[in-house]
C-alpha cells in the first residue's frame, strides 16, 4: 500500500470505495446478493415475497452447511469431496431405518457411516499424509459402493422420512423456515469454533504455514483428524436436513451439492490454499448461488445455456472478489 500513496491527502472516491470494500470484505458480497435479488424482482415483478424468501433460505441451508464443512477444511489447505456421499448416506439410511426404528435411533444409525468416513479421512490425511483430494474422493467412492450394497438389503422395506425431519426441513413457523432452528446453532457453532477457540486458530495456523505450525508444537494429525470427523458429522446432519426437504430418498441425493458447496466457500472469500477466509462469507456465498439458480430458472433459457451462465458467473464473481480482497 505504501508505494501507491497518492500525493493528494484525500484519495479518489473510487479508490476510497475499493479501500472500504477490501477492509470490509463482506460488503461487496452483500451488495452482489442485493443486486441479484433486485434483478430478479425487475425481471419478474412480485416474485420477491416472504414465501419466496423462505423457500430460498430453506434450499440454501443444506448447501450452506456443506459449504461450512468445505470452509473449515479449506482453511487448512484441504478439500472434502466426500461430503456429498456422507450426506446422501445419512439421508438414505435415516429414510430406510425410519421404517422400523424410532426417529432418534434411525438418526443415530444414520450418523455412524459419517463418523467412520470422517475418521478414515482424518487418518489418511493426518497420519499418512495422503492428498485430501484423493483421500476424500476415494472414501466417497467406497461410501457410494457400500450404500449401493446396503440398498439391496433394504429394497423391500420401502422408505419413511421421519416426520420430525420433514417438519424441520420443509415446515414454516410464522413464515420462518423451521430449518433455521437447526442452522442458527450450527452456524453459531462453526463461527464460534473458527473465531473464538484455540482449535479454530490452529486451523488457520496449519493452513497458513504448516511447517511453522508444526515447529510451534501443533500436533498436526490430531488437528486434521478432529477436523475431518467434524466435517463428516456436519455433512451427515446436512443430509438429514436435506432428506426432510426433498422427502424422497435416492442414491445420488446430495451429490449435486458437492461442487456448489466448494463454489459457495470460494465465492465467500475462503482461499482454497488455506489460511484465509471465514464462515460468514460462505453463508452469503450459498445464498448468492441459490438466488442465481432461481434467476437462471426464471430466465427460461435452455438447460445448457443455464449451466454455461452458472459456470461463467461463478468464475467471474470469484475473480472479481479475489481482486478486491487481495488489493490491500
Amino acid at each position, binding site marked *: 500500500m505504501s508505494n501507491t500513496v497518492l500525493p493528494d491527502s484525500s484519495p479518489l472516491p473510487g479508490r476510497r470505495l475499493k479501500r472500504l470494500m477490501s477492509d470490509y470484505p463482506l460488503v461487496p458480497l452483500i451488495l452482489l446478493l442485493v443486486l441479484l435479488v433486485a434483478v430478479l424482482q425487475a425481471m419478474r415483478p412480485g416474485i420477491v415475497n416472504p414465501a419466496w424468501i423462505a423457500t430460498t433460505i430453506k434450499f440454501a441451508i443444506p448447501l450452506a452447511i456443506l459449504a461450512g464443512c468445505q470452509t473449515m477444511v479449506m482453511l487448512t489447505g484441504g478439500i472434502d469431496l466426500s461430503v456429498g456421499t456422507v450426506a446422501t448416506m445419512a439421508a438414505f439410511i435415516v429414510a430406510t431405518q425410519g421404517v422400523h426404528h424410532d426417529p432418534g435411533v434411525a438418526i443415530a444409525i444414520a450418523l455412524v457411516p459419517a463418523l467412520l468416513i470422517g475418521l478414515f479421512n482424518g487418518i489418511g490425511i493426518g497420519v499418512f499424509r495422503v492428498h485430501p*483430494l484423493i*483421500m476424500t474422493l476415494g472414501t*466417497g467412492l467406497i461410501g457410494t459402493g*457400500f450404500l449401493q450394497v446396503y440398498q439391496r438389503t433394504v429394497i423391500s422395506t420401502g422408505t419413511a422420512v421421519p416426520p420430525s425431519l420433514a417438519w424441520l426441513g420443509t415446515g414454516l413457523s410464522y413464515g420462518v423456515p423451521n430449518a433455521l432452528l437447526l442452522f442458527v446453532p450450527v452456524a453459531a457453532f462453526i463461527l464460534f469454533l473458527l473465531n473464538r477457540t484455540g482449535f479454530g486458530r490452529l486451523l488457520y495456523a496449519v493452513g497458513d504455514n504448516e511447517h511453522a505450525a508444526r515447529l510451534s508444537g501443533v500436533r498436526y494429525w490430531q488437528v486434521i483428524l478432529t477436523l475431518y470427523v467434524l466435517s463428516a458429522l456436519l455433512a451427515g446432519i446436512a443430509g438429514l436436513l436435506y432428506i426432510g426437504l426433498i422427502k424422497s430418498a435416492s442414491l445420488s441425493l446430495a451429490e449435486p451439492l458437492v461442487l456448489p458447496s*466448494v463454489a459457495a466457500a470460494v465465492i465467500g472469500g475462503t482461499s482454497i490454499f488455506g489460511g484465509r477466509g471465514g464462515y460468514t462469507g460462505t453463508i452469503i456465498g450459498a445464498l448468492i448461488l441459490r438466488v442465481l439458480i432461481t434467476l437462471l430458472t426464471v430466465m427460461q433459457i435452455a438447460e*445448457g445455456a443455464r449451466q*454455461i451462465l452458472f*459456470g461463467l458467473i461463478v468464475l467471474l464473481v470469484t475473480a472479481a472478489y479475489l481482486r478486491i480482497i487481495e488489493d490491500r
Partner: protein
Amino acid sequence: MTRFLRRRGWVAGLFILFALLLVATKIIQPGYGAGDFVSLSRAVLPYAFAVAAQTVVVIAGGIDLSVAAMMALTSVTAAAMMNGASPSYALFVVPFVLALGFVLGAVNGILIIVTRVPDIVVTLAMLFVLQGAALLVLSAPGGSAAEWLKALVVGTVPLPLLPDAVTAWFPKALLLLVVCLGIVWIPLKHSKLGLSLYAIGSSELAAFRSGVPVARTRILAYAFSGLFAAMGGLTLTMSTGIGAPIPGPYLLASVAAVVLGGVTLGGGRGGLVGPIVAVFVLRLVRTDLTLMAVDPNVTTIVEGVIMVVVVMLGAFLAMKGRSP
C-alpha cells in the same frame, strides 16, 4: 541401483501387477483369451485418454476437473457434425474436434493465468460451461460416426508374417492408443516445453527464476490436456457410434489412475506410461470381479479401497524414505 528402482520401480511394479492380474484372470476364467483382451483394450480407450489429459496438467502442478465435460463436448460435437455427412467429411471433423479441444484447453489455462483464481476453481467453473455447451450441441444422445472411424477401434491389427494366434493379441484400439499418445507425448517430453512442464510442476518460483515462461507453459499444459480429452471424446464417439452430452465417470477415474500411476499430485514427477498401465490394471480388476460374479456394487468399493490403500502405501513409503 536403489535410485533406479525408486524412479522406475513404480511403473515396473504396475506392469508386474498387470501381468499377475492377467494370470489371475486366466485362473478365474480359463476361457479368457485374445478376444476378451481386445474388448478390454476397447473399454480402456476413453479412460486412457482422460488419464493422459489429467496427467499432463498434474505434472505441471495443476489439476483439471473439466476433463470429463471436455470429453462430452468434443464427443457430441464430432457425432453431431458427422450425422448424415459423407465419410470423407469425417476427415475434416477429426482435426476440427482436436483443434477445438486444444483451444478450449488453452482457454482453461488462460483463465487461470488472467483471473488468478486457483486452477481447481477455474476448471470447476469450466466443467459447468463445457457441460452446458455439450447440452446445447445435442440435448439427448444422438448423432453418428463415420464407418471407417468406428472400424479403427474394432478388431485386431493384421500383422504380416505372424500367425493368427499372435495377431489376435494386438487390438487395433491398443495401437490407436499408443500411436495417438506417442505422437504427442514423446516429442513433447523431450522438447524444451516438456522440461518446462516438469520445472513449473516441481517449483514454480524456481522455474520462473531460471527463465521458464511460467504463464505460457501453464497455458500449453492445459491446451495439451484439452487435446488429449478431445481424443478421448472422439474415441467415445468411435466406439459407441453416437455422442452423449452427459459426462461419463472419467473425472474420478482419471484422478485415481494418475495417482496410482505414480504421478504425485504436487506436480513435477512421473510420466505417462505409469498412469496408462494403471488404467489397464483398474479396468482388469473390474473385469475380474465381474467374472467372479461379485456384485458390481462391491466392485465400486474394491476400486475405492485399492485407490486409497495404494496412495496410503505410497505416502507411507515416501515418509520412510525421507526420515533416515
